[in-house]
């Protein structure tokens, strides 16, 4: 689009002039027209002032605060997903196989839901039988364990030791002390050495 010589500069012309683009007509008009020259020079000064404005920095540890709220994707899961996706789309055969498998899974799920809805009585009866059997089995196991414990040789001694409340308290205190002593010893053993450790090969 050409501009008449007496026509003032458009904002686009001023932008081009500010950008220093070769536009002899615009330059000639700026040289000749006081109003356009004033606007163009004022714009140039304003833009320089705006460009000189400093960038502000957020407070320290801004990045850390951002990162605490960002959920990083698990690289292992991503890799596995990526591998699975690549293998799936590798050949037409693998894709057909995966599609068949998906159809089978969905169909079997649908069938099982349909069967469950039509055989509610059977499911309820099976549930009752399972609960009763499990309860009976647990009770038998508990009785056997108690009977076996009372037949042990140390049972009589333990019973004598706990015959009075005072003896029972003493026994409990002894057991607690042994337990705490064991814990303390274990902690000592597991403490890392603070000084340098000499190595056989050093």
């Amino acid at each position: 689009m050409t501009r008449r010589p007496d026509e003032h500069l458009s904002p686009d012309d001023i932008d081009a002039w500010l950008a220093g683009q070769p536009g002899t007509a615009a330059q000639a008009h700026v040289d000749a027209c006081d109003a356009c020259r004033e606007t163009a020079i004022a714009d140039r000064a304003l833009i320089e002032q705006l460009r000189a404005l400093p960038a502000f920095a957020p407070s320290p540890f801004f990045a850390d605060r951002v990162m605490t709220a960002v959920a990083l994707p698990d690289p292992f899961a991503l890799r596995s997903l990526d591998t699975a996706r690549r293998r799936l789309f590798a050949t037409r055969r693998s894709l057909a196989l995966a599609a068949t498998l998906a159809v089978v899974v969905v169909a079997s799920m649908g069938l099982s839901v349909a069967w469950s809805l039509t055989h509610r009585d059977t499911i309820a009866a099976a549930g009752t039988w399972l609960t009763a059997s499990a309860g009976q089995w647990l009770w038998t196991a508990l009785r056997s364990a108690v009977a076996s414990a009372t037949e042990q040789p140390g049972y009589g001694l333990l019973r004598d030791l706990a015959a009075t409340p005072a003896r029972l308290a003493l026994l409990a205190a002894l057991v607690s002390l042994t337990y705490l002593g064991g814990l303390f010893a274990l902690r000592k053993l597991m403490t890392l050495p603070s000084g340098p450790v000499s190595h056989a090969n050093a």
Partner: protein
Amino acid sequence: MASSRIELASATDQEVVALARHGQETAYRELVRRYERPVFSLVYRMVRDRELAEDLAQETFVKALNAIESYRPEFKFSSWIFKIANNAAIDHLRRRELDTLSLDGSPHAETPEAIEATALQIGDRQETALEEVEARELGGEIESAIARLRPEYRSCILLRHVDGRAYEEIAEILGLPLGTVKTYIHRARNELRVLLGHLKQ
């Protein structure tokens, strides 16, 4: 470790985003490092409250980085993050406009006592250290003039002449037609020239 830091620093935004998508934390941090200052500066100049600007900038990064999978590499990452930041600032300004408190007290107050009780006590208010920093940082004539522009003009002028973004990128960031962006920038420049006219004299 140091070499990978240098490699990341010289990588393009798209390359860093690709690494971030593979779960590399250093890549996320690199994106924050690159854009924390420009994003914070834009938001701060929009809302003129340091604490709030920090919250909005943080919200911007969290939103962008948590949705990094949805970022489309054919667009500039800078456009994407500035778009989120600008939307956060504009949304806040619109909300604030709705919630503006009356200096003369609650409009629902019926008695003179109630009006007095609900009026803002500006004279009694102490300026906090943070506000002092803000007053220093944003106290220049040009910063004050920018603050007096309409939010849409402010976004445009800041993106164009402070951040040096191209008109096309600004149109993409603000979701506006190119012609509208140009008009807003020219009007903003005209307003700023008028507002700063006394300096010239």
